[in-house]
């Protein structure tokens, strides 16, 4: 048998072909009594939420009461994680900012990328890795 093959799986590159928004669901919780929900209640009655929902049909939006508690927004992501933001005492514009933050998140834990500007690539470098055995002809120049 001259050559055999190893089994592998192709890896996704979100955005190279299709782009899948990672946020798949947003839960809005409000309270009718507490003052901290005032901005949230205004937001839910304003056209902001309707226009957001219309612009993002790929996100399921649930609105439900959460009595006697601060208002929260919970984002569910494709990787199975959730991200929750408490929006107590925020105005509706500020809440929209938080909603956009949840929309743009990918659900991963926020991690610090060490090493400053790190650009990762799955492809090998075109020039190859430097090695000392192929530099003989250049030795005299530098």
């Amino acid at each position: 048998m001259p050559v055999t093959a190893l089994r592998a799986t192709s890896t996704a590159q979100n955005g190279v072909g299709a782009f899948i928004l990672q946020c798949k669901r947003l839960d809005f919780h409000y309270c009718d009594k507490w003052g901290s929900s005032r901005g949230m209640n205004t937001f839910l009655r304003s056209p902001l939420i309707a226009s957001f929902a219309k612009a993002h049909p790929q996100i399921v939006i649930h609105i439900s009461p959460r009595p006697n508690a601060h208002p929260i927004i919970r984002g569910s992501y494709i990787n199975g994680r959730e991200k929750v933001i408490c929006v107590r005492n925020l105005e509706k514009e500020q809440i929209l900012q938080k909603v956009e933050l949840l929309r743009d998140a990918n659900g991963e834990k926020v991690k610090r990328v060490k090493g400053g500007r790190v650009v990762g690539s799955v492809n090998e470098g075109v020039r190859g890795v430097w090695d000392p055995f192929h530099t003989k002809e250049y030795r005299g120049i530098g």
Partner: protein
Amino acid sequence: MKGLRLLRWSGSVLSLRTRPCCFIHKYQYQYPAQPLGLLRLQSSAAAPLRTVSEPEDDKEPRDSTDYTLLPSPPPSRPPSSARLSALHARLVLPTRLPLEILARCLVDPSADTNSNFNNASLSLLGSDLLGYYTSEAIICRYPRLPTEVMKAAMAAYCGPKTLAAITREWGVEVAAAPGREVDPGFLQCIRQEAGNASVNGTGTQVKELQTAADGVSTRPDAESPTRGWRRGASSKTLYGDRFGDEIQRTETDYAERPELRKEEAQRKAKRGVTLEQASTGFVGALMGAMYIHAGKKAARNFFKAHVLSRHLDVSKLFEFRQPTRDLSKLCAREGFESPVARIESETGRKSRTPVFVVGVFAGKDKLGEGSGSSLDEARFRAAVGALKGWYLYSPLEVRVPSEATGGRPWEPVLVDGGEVVV
């Protein structure tokens, strides 16, 4: 290549299904031995209502809105499912593919054995399309790829494991158990019991009970235990599926003995399916639905966007046993001079960490180069590099056969002889 005139034969698939009268199905599910759906191939006529002789002692009132016995969500449910609409939007599916069809793609045959409501037919079409598009993309891009590597690349792009990953990355969730009340946005299937689950609280595990009676291999030497281990490339091509895996039964077997298919469906419904199998069915069905509802171009674009755009390093799929022997055979076949390995540079031959750089040459042409801590290692790596350089040749402009409809006339692509036979 002429386009198929789908509307002439796929009327039964394009039209949305409704349960004609649910008491028919009620009896069907009570008595599963009754014949399941009629075979209506290439017909645009609607399915005729089957009249089932009603048992005489049955005094239950007929209620056509009684969906309690349906195994999967009724077709009236999908428009109200937010989860399903979100999935439709997330995949940017065209409006020509209605929500009801997307919902049907999510119903596995193990959940609903009625072939008018599950995704079996769509997935049969879609998996063939997936195989066709993937194989033409690989063969045209790497015309010299060895058969085994080509099959491995096929499996990497559209094998069950990859399709399961795609399903997960699309955000499709699996229903805990299928049923009429389940949101149609869930993938509906009956899950197979885990192999290490205990049987009725005894110490026996499920996998210990399973006998080899799952299916019959199509290999001629399957019964012979002494020869069953041989799995050569040609054997895989003849008796395997598109990934080189062994298939239990072929379509010819089903055509000769149609009852086998029913047995298979009933066995699956009884034992359930794995998540991988259900995901494979779903992605295939969606591909088939795209082809039927939105057309060939949309199906191709969908395939490109979701399957072909994934990253795969084909050069990592090779596994050579004797690369130097393969290389000399290859040079003999192609009419090159026989390859010679020469040291290009070295350091620390007597030290603990020597490095040798060896190149293989055919005459004055350098075929490959490799470095290693021993002369043999460097020589093998050089031969592997040379072989990969040959096998991974890729033409600059690639046009696959399925793109050759209309416009520019089709120019044949290069498909090389493949690997050397040693």
